[in-house]
């Protein structure tokens, strides 16, 4: 198992390096001079030169790359151009809110999807199945930047049940979590249905039925447990989509997380902070995928020998 873990970790390192390199190159894609772009047209040449020195843009590209990687290893992502704070600190302050939202969304998604997927599989080919799967397709097609405002109109504006934006109580978390979790719920419902149908064809389910178990008991006690393995994997793999989704959801609901920080950084042309946020989100995504792979390896030992 340790060999498998080490191998997976080693395979991840080049990907992380590639991601870091691409993110490093981003700032050099800025048309013209990034320093001028950040300071605007009214800035003097002296101010621009000063910022270029501060960002290290006056150094040769390779030297910049080397110091970028060195900083990265030390956990130093540079300094925010807007307020002079270390980028790592800016991200750290918002980390909790982003993870709180992401996990709440995943919880909501599972709460909706798993019963829906089971119902669709149990009543396969019936109106319940068609209804559940159409609902899932609608969920996938409904962009969160529309669902969010719609939920806000209904539950905050018309019914007044929930706050429209901000943080402070559990009620503030409900609308953002449902908005973010809806698409995942749709994917999970389809996956649960497909996975459960696959298990229902297995002989052990037939054997359980032959022993006198009712169909519902055979499903709940035997097939459902095994059908969860691919569902758990999908939950892990979809974490990236949820993380990206936080960018829009946090913007809609003024949720003070890393996603909103990224959009604010883009609007202020705070490129070091943009770089930091992009790096943080993609690194988290890669590590989450690694964790999912390893968990899958633990759940199903055959995977380790692939």
């Amino acid at each position, binding site marked *: 198992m340790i060999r498998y873990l080490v191998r997976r970790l080693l395979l991840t390192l*080049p*990907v*992380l390096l*590639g*991601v870091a*390199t*691409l*993110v490093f190159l*981003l*700032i050099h*894609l*800025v*048309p013209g001079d990034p320093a001028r772009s950040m300071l605007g047209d009214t800035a003097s040449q002296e101010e621009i030169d000063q910022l270029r020195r501060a960002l290290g843009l006056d150094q040769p590209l390779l030297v910049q790359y080397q110091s970028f990687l060195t900083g990265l290893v030390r956990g130093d992502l540079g300094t925010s151009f807007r307020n002079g704070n270390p980028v790592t600190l800016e991200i750290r302050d918002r980390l909790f809110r982003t993870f709180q939202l992401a996990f709440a969304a995943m919880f909501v998604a599972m709460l909706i999807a798993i019963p829906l997927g089971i119902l669709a599989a149990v009543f396969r080919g019936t109106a319940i199945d068609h209804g559940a799967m159409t609902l899932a*397709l*609608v969920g*996938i*097609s*409904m*962009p969160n*930047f*529309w*669902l969010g*405002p*719609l939920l*806000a*109109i209904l539950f*905050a*504006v018309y019914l007044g049940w929930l706050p*429209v934006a901000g943080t402070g109580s559990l009620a503030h978390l409900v609308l953002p979590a449902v908005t973010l979790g809806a698409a995942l719920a749709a994917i999970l419902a389809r996956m649960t249905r497909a996975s459960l*149908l696959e298990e229902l064809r297995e002989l052990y389910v037939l054997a359980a039925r032959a022993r006198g178990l009712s169909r519902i008991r055979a499903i709940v006690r035997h097939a459902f447990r095994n059908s969860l393995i691919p569902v758990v994997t999908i939950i892990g793999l979809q974490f*990236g*989509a949820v*993380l*990206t*989704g936080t*960018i*829009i959801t946090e*913007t*809609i609901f003024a949720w003070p997380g890393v996603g909103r920080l*990224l*959009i604010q950084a*883009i*609007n202020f042309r705070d*490129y070091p902070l*943009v770089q930091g946020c*992009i790096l943080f*989100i*993609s690194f988290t*995504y*890669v590590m989450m995928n690694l964790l999912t792979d390893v968990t899958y390896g633990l759940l199903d030992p055959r995977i380790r020998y692939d």
Partner: protein
Amino acid sequence: MIRVGLLIVVIAAVAALFGPLLTPYDPASQELARRLEGPSLSHPLGLDELGRDILARLLAGTRISLLVGLAVVSMSSVVGMLMGSMAGYFGGRVDDVISRVIDVLMAFPGILLAIALVAVLGPSLTNVVLALSVIGWVGYARLVRGQALRARELDFVQAARALGAGSGRIILKHILPTAMPSIVVQATLGMAGAIIAEAALSFLGLGVQPPTPSWGTMLDAGRSHLFDAPHLTIFPGLAIALLVLGLNFVGDGLRDRVDPKLAK
């Protein structure tokens, strides 16, 4: 479902082509005195925050959405097919390099890389298409690579090679056609993805810039008027969801036909 999907897509295409003929209003003309007015007989979907007809703007936005979808799918599929077939057919170093680039691009979740690219290149329609194509080709490349890996060992490909056909000819005439049904499915679903991504970027202020009508920018404008004019939010979102749903219906239907095992 595929028929319902096709119907929605055809309606959207007609709206994009003949939009200006379907409404007497110009999408840019303003009636400030009637701003935020709700749906009425003269303006079936109401007026926006500058008193512009929402139906006229939605129809103009259909053109942008379909244009972005088609442009992204065309660019990504051509690049993806080229890269994927080269990686799968030649193998070795070529495969290693292309696969590593794919790995790195796949390490960015969703549209994060597109957001990053548009953030540095500047918000515009061209940059949105470029950014979405940069992330879009990877899906096609993975698909075609897998097909090419299998196809290069097949008898008819070996026979073509033995007859002296060049690599380019083998890829174009023998390998790509085997992957074509899956590519069409990927393109249909990819178009839905590109339309949502464009609207998302425009919603975040990183895509199409006002006053050009885009469904995403219309939704963004509606955000400030959730209390007093919810119709600004409801109609553009409905348009996006319907078109994407239509494309997903078509994509799902085609996938079931290409791979009947999935339909079970």
